[in-house]
């Protein structure tokens, strides 16, 4: 079986993250770059299956700036067998649609039985890539799985929803996205780090995948303005002098909260 795990390099949530106020893009120099935690969990899921089932191939796929190679190698050190790194100047500021198109082309290029992704990234918080990818690949999609069972021909799992928990299953090939209920990443060992240096890491551009970033026919999201989040203002204190109930009601009405 061939499993492709999507990983994304993101600014570490441990520190302050910044956007460039001119371009609206993430200021990557402002914080440390790491693999998004949810991607690490997706990789852990794939590796756990690979450990128990010989002949399983685990490949990483990442769409990231050129400098992200070191971050992707960490995934190889954890135990993935190979990696594909799609990097192109034309992808700077790519929207979800272009990102999904590019990822789908890369997935198709290497072939797959199962694609595992996180449900949502910590930087963009879009959460749409898995669904878009499944649509473009024309395969079944199970979203937001909090437990996963992979078998030879299919994948199943539980999916918490508002009213309870759904049990869903799909035949392979398929795309699944997981939540952070799944176990965290293993710590790379010395052997893994040494081996990671020799594992194949393919660097692809849009031309390799036959994608045109600036196709005028395609609708693309654009950013119009960007502004820093205003500092938090002090709240209103209501002191009870016998009329606190009225004051509270007034406050709620005034702020259209009632």
């Amino acid at each position: 079986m061939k499993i492709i795990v999507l990983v994304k390099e993101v600014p570490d949530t441990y520190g302050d993250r910044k956007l460039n106020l001119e371009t609206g893009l993430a200021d990557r120099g402002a914080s440390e770059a790491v693999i998004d935690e949810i991607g690490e969990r997706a990789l852990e899921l794939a590796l756990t299956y690979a450990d128990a089932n010989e002949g399983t191939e685990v490949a990483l796929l990442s769409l990231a700036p050129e400098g992200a190679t070191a971050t992707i190698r960490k995934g190889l050190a954890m135990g993935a067998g190979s990696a594909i790194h799609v990097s192109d100047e034309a992808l700077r500021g790519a929207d979800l649609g272009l990102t999904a198109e590019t990822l789908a082309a890369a997935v198709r290029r290497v072939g797959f039985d199962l694609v595992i992704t996180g449900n949502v990234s910590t930087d963009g918080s879009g959460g749409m890539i898995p669904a878009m990818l499944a649509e473009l690949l024309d395969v079944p999609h199970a979203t937001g799985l909090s437990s996963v069972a992979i078998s030879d021909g299919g994948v199943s799992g539980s999916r918490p929803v508002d009213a309870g928990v759904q049990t869903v299953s799909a035949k392979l090939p398929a795309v699944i996205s997981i939540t952070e209920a799944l176990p965290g990443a293993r710590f790379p060992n010395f052997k893994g780090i040494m081996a990671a240096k020799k594992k194949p890491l393919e660097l692809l551009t849009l031309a390799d995948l036959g994608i045109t970033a600036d196709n005028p026919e395609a609708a693309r999201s654009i950013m119009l303005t960007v502004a820093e989040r205003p500092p938090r203002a002090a709240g209103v204190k209501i002191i009870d002098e016998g009329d606190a109930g009225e004051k509270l009601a007034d406050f709620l009405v005034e702020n259209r909260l009632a």
Partner: protein
Amino acid sequence: MQPAPEHIAQALAPATSVVETVAETEPPATANAPAVTAAPASVAQSVAAERPVRPKAEARLYGTRTLGQWIRLVVLLGVGAVAAAAILVLAARGVTTLPGVPEFLARYPGEYSPPAAAESGFPWWAQWAHFMNIFMMVLIIRSGYQVRTQQKPPAFWTPKRGGKKISINLWLHQSLDILWLVNGLIFVMLLFTSGHWMRIIPTSWEVFPNALSALLQYMTLDWPVETGWVNYNSLQQLMYFLVVFIAAPLSAITGVRMSEFWPKNAKTLNKIYPVEVARAVHFPTMLFFVLFILIHVFLVFSTGALRNLNHMFGGTDVVNWVGFWLFAAAIAITVAGWYAARPIVLAPIAKLFGQVSSR
């Protein structure tokens, strides 16, 4: 090139055709993850106007000061330290001329005679415990400092039987603590069974005036003659007693109070001995150890280095290079330990006792 954050994308197509696709605005009260929300075009502000005005070419800062300020500070501190030391030495010399002081120094020369049963020299187990102490204290202080200062530990450890996840530095700190305590307990047991306790536990009240006398002699720079093979001077004896029987147990009991080993639900016990007390004492105890080590090493090297090193590392009272080379080996092992105490080496060891994760 990566779409981060995805909903803020650049113009790739004519703006007129895509304005609707940007309508991902959230009410400010619920905006959490993205620091910036895309505002509708109608309230678009001039972004350029919000850019902070940068002051003109500032001098490069190293920490909080410029290089010039640092140099000035260091020179000033150096001059101050020399001046303070000179004042202390002169004051001490002045004190020795005061009436009664020469008689005091003659009456209490800085040491008192040990009990007749006291054996001289240093047994092999004391040398071994001393080496283990060097090795572990260095790593304990380092890992403790890391626990105190590191905001994002490189790895975490969870006990096998379940329980709280702690940073790998804290795991190292506590694991070494346990080994250090075992080492200390064995040392103290042997100290008492062998009779060597008489070397570092005062056996006479004369220890206090003698310690004062020794301190005064150190301060006048007319140091008492080093006779550590046979008998410590009273100041040495008090300090070694303080380190072994006060500071070490204090650091252990305050450390245990802050650790997961402590019973969290023992209400009365925790009221009598609040964690804040432990927290307030643990760090200064470390500072005391560091100060002790600095003075200890300085005096070892300035009062006959080869002979002193032979005492504690070679186990003889002769002057040759054997002790020095054994000391050098001990330092080399400690440096190797320092170098090895990193996640990639610690993780496989920590894995034997629990689970290691990167978050």
